[in-house]
């Protein structure tokens, strides 16, 4: 049984990774689970400058999900290089750096700087964070900007280049086409959905920024539908995420057209879930005579 996933110039050992923003830079969860069994760690979003993050409270539980508004809190490039990169370099599974920025030149400069390091397997470009005022979602909802940014990033690296897409658009398929036209190696979908919870006693949103990003089981059908739509529009590999708690959920994404998956919010329920998901995928493949992940595609 072949569990490997090829994305551009790189190959992941298996399809199950952990989603950016839920796993830090790997150290914390590395004390709880065997990182060598993961397909990839998609690291916390990194920006050129240190970002303290958004005002508090930053999260609230919602029906079968949660809202978060972390605001890309991260140590910034300089501290990342010294404090975080060595762990990623020595980690026993591939690290994918998640790159954030306010403007196009931020993304380009940061990828250029990261090319000096040897800590990572590839890049996931965050053009879909709903919780920052500039950059993020503003890029990811405009096909022209997505194609332009991807095109400018492409010559900067030979490593796999993954564009992370937002579901907060009319047609995610069009955005995926723009990423493909720009030269991306893959797309990942979905980032969080925009949501809001209002405290009726205080008569204001629970999260100070107002809206925040919805994740968890509640978004799973949206994510699966987005992956299915993207698969109809592009021939790029798709990395599916959003509400994966069990192998069955991951298999839904694979059947919809994904070649790999990420587990995010489920880590907050049980850190062992990514490894359980992987075991469940293997069992499903074994039971159904699948020999590679391609066997998940084309059933409907």
């Amino acid at each position, binding site marked *: 049984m072949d569990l490997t996933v090829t994305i551009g110039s790189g190959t992941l050992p298996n399809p199950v990774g952990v989603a950016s*923003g*839920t*796993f*830090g830079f790997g150290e*914390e*969860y590395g*004390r*709880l689970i065997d990182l060598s069994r993961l397909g990839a760690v998609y690291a*916390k979003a990194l920006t050129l400058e*240190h970002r*303290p*993050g958004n*005002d*508090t*409270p*930053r*999260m*609230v*539980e919602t*029906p*079968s*999900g*949660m809202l*978060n508004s*972390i605001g890309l*809190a991260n140590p910034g490039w300089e501290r990342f290089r010294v404090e975080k990169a060595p762990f990623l370099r020595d980690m026993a599974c591939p690290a994918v750096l998640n790159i954030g920025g306010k403007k196009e030149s931020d993304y380009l400069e940061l990828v250029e700087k990261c090319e000096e390091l040897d800590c990572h397997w590839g890049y996931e470009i965050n053009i879909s964070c709903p919780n920052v005022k500039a950059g993020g979602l503003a890029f990811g909802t405009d096909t022209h900007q997505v194609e332009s940014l991807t095109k400018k990033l492409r010559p900067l690296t030979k490593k796999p280049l993954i564009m992370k897409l937002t579901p907060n658009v009319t047609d995610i398929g069009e955005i995926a086409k723009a990423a493909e036209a720009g030269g991306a190696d893959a797309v990942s979908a979905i980032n969080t959905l925009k949501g809001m919870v209002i405290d009726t006693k205080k008569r204001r949103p629970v999260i100070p920024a107002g809206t925040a990003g919805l994740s*968890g*089981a509640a978004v799973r059908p949206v994510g699966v539908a987005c992956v299915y739509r993207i698969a109809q529009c592009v021939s790029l590999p798709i990395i599916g995420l959003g509400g994966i*708690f069990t192998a069955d959920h991951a298999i839904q994404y694979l059947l919809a057209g994904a070649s790999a998956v990420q587990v995010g*919010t489920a*880590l*907050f*329920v*049980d*850190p*062992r879930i990514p490894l359980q998901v992987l075991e469940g995928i293997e069992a499903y493949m074994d039971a159904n005579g699948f020999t590679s992940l391609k066997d998940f595609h084309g059933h409907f």
Partner: protein
Amino acid sequence: MEQFHSEVISCRESARDYYELIFTWKGPVPLPGQFLTLRCWEGDSPLLRRPFALSSYDAAERRASLIFQKRGPATSLMTHLKTGDHMDILGPLGGTFPPPETGRRPVITGGGIGTGPVLFLADALSRAGLRPLLVLGFRDKNFVPRVHLPLGCETVICTDDGSAGQEGTVIDYLRSRDDLAGSHFYGCGPNPMLKGLHELAVEQNAPCSVSVEEVMACGIGACQGCAIPVNLPRKFLRVCQDGPVFDSRILVWT
């Protein structure tokens, strides 16, 4: 920290809407101030693990306890826990209360749901022969928990209406004492109590260590969801990993 399976030894209502949960502990030895996250239900509603500070640890019996308030869906489910029920625990998490500064007497305050961790601290410091002053505050006598209070402490109960112990708040009581110079203050409880404790400590130029509560997702320092504002260049610290016990002087009091 470790993730491990635990069995409920007992769960009983110890005051109105407050429950004492005693359970088996297979993880590393927890210290006062540390917490755990747990899940004892299936499905995705409620979703996230819930954090609770530990209120005791019995090394000989390998059992620990916590005190929780019935407040939302998860804690409502927890009130139905019975002997032998299974829980998934991640712990011990976070840092501990620091020892009192040399020569200072520990003055330990707790209120409402903050009672658990200060009982654990008071017990540890009294065993170390430091004879802490333990002041616990509650709304009225119905909220005073019927739990084992640590021996070797000077313990004072306060209620807002005077229906049990001293009438008034914990801070009222502390301000009525004229022998607290040279204290190291500790606290866990509602924000107004912690703020009052902080102000008292500043007036007396005394150290003050407070344990704070925040909604959490990962509980281990990865997600930055439980950040609180601090008077430091980095602006925010994580309650789960940098706390939950902080020097009160770095926190932003509003």
